[in-house]
């Protein structure tokens, strides 16, 4: 069974640009979560989608947005990039069960210059 996939693996952008990251969940999983992990820091929750709806949002500015498609894949969009947006962006998927065990993708490493 294929795991969570993310694309691209690495990305270099400049300040002010926009970026779109993509995630495909494990087959059968309806929930997708996005996290930001800056170097040396913990996972910071960004967004949670389930069945195409945004279920919850972390403490991030509105320039971080996303969506979930009917096939449960998801996109994370970041507008007006800032230097501090440089981080590993992780996507995870889960069944919408009360236990919410999450299965993570390999991440997208974003560098903003």
């Amino acid at each position, binding site marked *: 069974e294929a795991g969570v996939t993310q694309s691209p693996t690495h990305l270099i952008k400049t300040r002010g640009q926009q970026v779109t990251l993509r995630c495909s969940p494990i087959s059968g999983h309806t929930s997708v979560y996005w996290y930001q992990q800056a170097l040396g820091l913990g996972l910071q929750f960004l967004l949670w989608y389930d069945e195409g709806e945004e279920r919850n949002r972390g403490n991030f500015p509105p320039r971080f947005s996303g969506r979930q498609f009917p096939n449960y894949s998801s996109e994370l969009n970041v507008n007006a990039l800032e230097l501090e947006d440089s981080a*590993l962006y992780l996507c995870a998927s889960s069944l919408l069960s009360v236990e919410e065990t999450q299965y*993570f993708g390999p991440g997208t490493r974003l560098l903003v210059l």
Partner: protein
Amino acid sequence: SQKIEQNSEALNIQEGKTATLTCNYTNYSPAYLQWYRQDPGRGPVFLLLIRENEKEKRKERLKVTFDTTLKQSLFHITASQPADSATYLCARSGGSYIPTFGRGTSLIVHP
């Protein structure tokens, strides 16, 4: 808001010894605690989940305990190996709350 706290200092142990990592939580009891392993530059990998009505869970060389009185979970790796060196994350789950991860504890197993 709730917090998941893990020891930020790296844990250094000798190969063959038992590693014990601590996870403390505040404010309210999570229904579940989960432990993940993360290698540098990679996504976390799920290891074990323990429910609040369970005292202990085992999987091969791994053992997790959950003490709701102390608001603490302990994660043990017995007969540790250098390949166990990684960062270990504790996370709460359950209900419609935002998934919350601790910052992780780095484990270094010396040969």
